[in-house]
């Protein structure tokens, strides 16, 4: 990933962001005056206790939600100002999501699940097939292409999830507790895969995790506590 189009050299620039949720008459401030820069090619781990705002921050960076205040700039583009329609197109082009519970569509085979983001492109059927095969090969699951999610182990499902996230060669990979539902062995395999994508293909990865073992694989770890970032974990 080149530095072109980045904001002040950072691929991700979160500047003075606040996020407030309204529940009835109550306002819940989840993020407060948050600043974060992530250079291109970095593998960043985002840690913090439950309710600290990790997933909310990830959603803002991934264009799934809008900040109450502040700006979110990705590869030089202010995504906090985009309309829902443009944001959807932006996500399709720039972001790959990996979820804790894999979130594969149970009615589609692994191959069809991976193909989903490509349906939003102008690629022909044969080109899509080629891209899907490449992505499945990258996660070591070419032989499981025709299997449905229920026929795959948790680790395999998560690898299909990663294949789906990288099949469009996105600018940014956002992983929300990618090993949270896996045993240690399967979790290690997934982390190794993410690490390889970061080191060998230069993918910029932001990973939310509770697990210090997982964060140890990242090139940098930041901590979120009560809606603010710290360099060190706090109680």
């Amino acid at each position, binding site marked *: 990933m080149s530095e072109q189009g980045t904001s002040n050299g950072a691929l991700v620039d979160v500047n003075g962001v606040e996020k407030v949720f309204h529940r009835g008459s109550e306002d819940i401030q989840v993020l407060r005056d948050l600043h974060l820069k992530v250079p291109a090619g970095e593998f960043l781990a985002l840690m913090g206790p439950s309710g600290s705002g990790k997933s*909310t921050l990830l*959603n803002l960076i*991934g264009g*799934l*939600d809008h900040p109450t205040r502040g700006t979110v700039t990705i590869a030089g583009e202010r995504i906090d100002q985009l309309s*829902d*329609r443009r944001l*959807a*197109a*932006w*996500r*399709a*082009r720039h972001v790959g*999501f990996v*979820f804790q*519970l894999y*979130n594969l*569509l*149970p*009615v*589609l085979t692994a191959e*069809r699940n991976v193909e*989903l*983001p490509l349906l*939003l492109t102008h690629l022909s059927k044969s080109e899509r097939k080629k891209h899907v095969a490449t992505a499945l090969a990258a996660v070591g699951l070419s032989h499981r292409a025709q299997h449905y999610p229920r026929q795959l182990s948790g680790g395999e499902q998560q690898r299909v999830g990663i294949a*789906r996230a990288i099949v469009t060669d996105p600018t940014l990979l956002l992983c929300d507790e990618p090993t949270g539902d896996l045993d240690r062995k399967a979790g290690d395999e997934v982390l190794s895969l993410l690490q390889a994508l970061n080191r060998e293909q230069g993918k910029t990865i932001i990973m939310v995790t509770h697990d210090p073992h997982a964060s140890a694989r990242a090139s940098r770890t930041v901590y979120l506590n009560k809606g603010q970032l710290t360099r060190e974990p706090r109680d």
Partner: protein
Amino acid sequence: MHLIWGNLLRKKTRTVLTLLSIIVAFVLFGFLSAIKQALTGGVSLAGANRLIVRHKISIIQLLPVDYKRRMEKIPGVAAVTHQTWFGGIYQDPKNFFMQNPVIPDEFLDMHPEMLLPAEQKQAWLKTRTGAVVGRKTADRFHWKVGDKVPIQSSIWSKKDGSFLWEFDVVGIYEGRDKNTDTTAMFFRYDFFDEARRGGTGQVGWYTIRVNDTAQAAEVAKLVDAEFENSSYETKTEAEGAFVQAWAKQIGDIALITASILGAVFFTILLVTGNTISQSVRERTGELGVLKAIGFTNAQMLALVLAESCLLAVLGGMVGLGVAWLLTSRGDPTGGMLPLFFFPAHDVLTGAAFSLALGLVTGLFPALQAMRLRVADSLRRI
């Protein structure tokens, strides 16, 4: 397409049951359309240039045969002929069909939709006891030209007191259009009038052909005025209205069928709507994932609508197909509903209904899917 099929097949039992209920609704639609066609179809086939003149009090009151001469003199009248209700059965009361005495050449001239070969027409003109039978009835009773057929009248006795009449089948007529009734039998009025014990010189009703269709209402008024204050006052109306009044004896067919179909489709609307809504609610998380991947609101709307439309159109097509097959076997009553078939325009209406059903049932869940907030839906997984 894989996604749409996959979603429909996710809960196979639920989808199959919903599909079955849609199929049943459209089979019912087809059947009711065929019944409606059978009971009111004659209205559309009625000649626009033909008027029916009957006794003012009711159709069962007779009119004098010499009215014909007076009607022919009325301006705008091109031709006049008459028929009389014979009310006979063949062998068994369930073998009921229409038989009327007519004047052969006048009758055929008045009804060009009934096609009779020239040599059979000649045979009819030569044979006093001759009768021509419609194709459906000839096939039903396996009658052929040359057969002698006994008909038991419920109204008319012969001079010897017998109600059993015997006719020679001299011709079999075909219908020019699908709508033409080919279940009737027509025999000669001169033979009938001479042989019957009572009612001589009287006929059931007249059919008038007018010179100009636009003048039909005016001619009808003139006819009724001609016989006003006589012992046999008349009521003249368009043939279509006459047939409609005949059908209305068993009720307003259109209203009855519309009411039944309305109730059926309202129920189907709820059943299908519930299936689609439930299906969308169950996969809120998955829809959230699709949105996260980059599917737009419009694409989410289209995805859910495609599912509901596929389900409704599939059920509709199968139902209409089954109805078509069942009704194409013809009149299930063995003669009471001679025009029983599923009209092509109703098939098209049914197809449009099925699409509308899909759109209406899918709209609300589709809007729900469209308005889903990604972050919220992902939290609900």
